[in-house]
């Protein structure tokens, strides 16, 4: 493989891994914020325990996901220096805003949320989780703005062989951003909803004694999925029109992307149907008493993850051979780094990402299987807080 192929393989691998973490993080933090809001308003103890249980899973996933985000951030300069040189003024601006406004602030808020358990007032602690949620979505938004520029460059002028930013508003209002961002947000909520439903179903299969705890969790998950999936599908379909207008070549490339595209659409529609069929069955726990849907719910956990990888493959591979659509090819952007250097970094990053993926899976599934802690012996919300 030459350096270009290696750099592309590396980008595809690291982005896919990163996005899996991002989706679960975004989806779960929203549900955790909703649960904590419920507790803060009503004082119902079970809602507090739910916030803590799902919050622990969220924090593990976030802290490991942050490591994948760091790799993403460095990767542009490491392997795609041509992009920074030519389009860095425009592409770098939303990414810099993302790291400052979102990443930097989000981690700071989250750190305080973790260590603020039982130390801060109820309302201050609630405000923190919402601050984390808002900055998390802001992060996703600015990344989509940066990506949207690669799909359909706007808001720039060329000057002396480099692009200069002229209009941030145009960058933000880019038609390739709007529908895609709604799509990503709905995907994240779907991942979060399906995950919470699946884990709750697992506990019902095991005939958990925590009936109230998992009934409420299951309901929140099903309702979230039922609300999110129609938007998910609609925002997915809406992108075809945008692509037809701004990236006509992509449609022909998509012919070759049949498998990821159709599996994504199939999963999307299936989840709409499944969640809406389940809604009426929530009454008097019919869905729990029927039992067989519980097994389907557990099996469904990976589905939205699979679909989301399909979505990125379509969006990113469909852009080829362009890196910045119509302006710069992927080939011209790759760094002048030898094949050996590129191979070493590919293996190193893929290796640590594989470890991260396995570690996340092991930790999350262990917390999820163990179920909520007894009220008498609360565990710290994060392994980072063991000493407290």
């Amino acid at each position, binding site marked *: 493989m030459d350096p270009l192929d290696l750099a592309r393989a590396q980008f595809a691998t690291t982005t896919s891994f990163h996005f899996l973490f991002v989706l679960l993080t975004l989806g779960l933090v929203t549900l955790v914020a909703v649960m904590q809001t419920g507790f803060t308003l009503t004082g119902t103890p079970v809602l507090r325990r739910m916030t803590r249980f799902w919050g622990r899973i969220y924090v593990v996933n976030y802290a*490991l996901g942050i490591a994948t985000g760091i790799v993403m951030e460095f990767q542009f300069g490491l392997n795609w220096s041509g992009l920074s040189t030519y389009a*860095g003024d425009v592409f770098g601006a939303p990414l810099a805003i993302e790291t400052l406004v979102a990443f930097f602030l989000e981690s700071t808020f989250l*750190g305080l949320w973790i*260590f603020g358990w039982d130390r801060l007032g109820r309302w201050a602690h609630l405000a923190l989780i919402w601050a984390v949620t808002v900055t998390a979505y802001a992060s996703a938004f600015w990344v989509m703005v940066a990506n949207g520029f690669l799909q359909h460059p706007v808001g720039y002028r060329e000057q002396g062989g480099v692009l200069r930013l002229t209009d941030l508003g145009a960058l933000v209002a880019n038609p390739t951003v709007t529908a895609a961002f709604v799509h990503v947000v709905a995907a994240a909520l779907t991942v979060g909803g399906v995950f919470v439903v699946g884990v709750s179903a697992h506990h019902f299969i095991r005939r958990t004694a925590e009936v109230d705890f998992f009934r409420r969790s299951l309901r929140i998950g099903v309702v979230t999925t039922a609300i999110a999936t129609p938007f998910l599908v609609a925002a997915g379909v809406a992108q075809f029109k945008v692509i037809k207008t701004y990236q006509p070549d992509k449609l022909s490339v998509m012919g070759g992307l049949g498998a990821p595209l159709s599996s994504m659409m199939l999963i999307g529609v299936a989840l709409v149907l499944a969640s809406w069929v389940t809604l009426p069955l929530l009454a008097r726990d019919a869905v729990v008493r029927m039992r067989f849907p519980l097994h389907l719910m557990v099996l469904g956990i990976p589905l939205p993850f699979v679909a989301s990888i399909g979505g990125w493959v379509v969006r990113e591979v469909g852009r080829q051979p362009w890196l910045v659509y119509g302006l710069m090819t992927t080939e011209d952007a790759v760094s002048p780094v030898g094949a050996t250097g590129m191979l070493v970094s590919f293996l190193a990053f893929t290796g640590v990402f594989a470890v991260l993926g396995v570690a996340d899976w092991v930790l999350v599934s262990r917390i999820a299987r163990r179920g909520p802690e007894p009220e008498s012996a609360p565990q710290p919300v994060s392994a980072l807080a063991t000493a407290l």
Partner: protein
Amino acid sequence: MESFWIVLLGLLAAGYFALAGFDYGTALLFRFVGRDERERGRALGAMTPFVLGDEVWLVAAVGVLFGAFPRLEGELLSGHHGAFVTIVTGLVAFTAAVQLRGAAPVWDVPLVGGALAVAVGWGVLAADVTGAPAPLWIVGVVGLFSLHGGTFLAWRLPGRAGVRARALARSLVLPCLLFVPAAVLLAGPVARPEVGVGVAVAVVVLLLGAWVTSGRVAFCCTAIACALPVPAVFAAQDVVTAETMAGTGTLAVLVPAAVVVLPLVLLFQWATWWMVRVRHA
């Protein structure tokens, strides 16, 4: 306007080394500071509340580098591919292992190894930029991070573990003192040697300060001693210049983001320190 971004980049980088430096140093030293599992757990636990907040200073610095100095970012990272791949790989291993350490002691391997890789990577980078021998800088950065971790643990840990950390830290001061003049003398041609010499003198004074003081003051001395060298190397070599900066359109957009975010981060990170402040002192 131009100097604002250069100063901001320098501050974020310095903040990263001052804060994350003791994270890596703690990881390098905790197995020596703690004699049994309980002590080791406490030593690591003193550091873990800050890990997330500390590491993101680097994320913010690279964000500013990308947004405000796009041409430098591409050139720097791709030009020092090996050093940065080492840093990032180590960072990922370290960040994951900090989370997972409670699960099994086998995670000590990526924890210590990751911290070591990060220090080695920064050492290689600084050596590349100044033209000094890489082993010198590798030993120097590992030594400075370890010393910083030592003063942190000496300040935060009660009892015998704290005393051991203090002894370890003191034993590291002399090697660090030897490293600083060596790094200046063995450097290749440098654009602004006076910067290098000035910072070297400051670091020597800080190291002596860490030797004679203890607790929070010693920690502050090693924090600044950790923060200065790598940014100073870039300043001495005049790497961050106005020519590599983004156009005024980009910078105007980024100013409000930086002006709003920085005070907030400082305030909230200070709140984290305040919440987990030392109570045994």
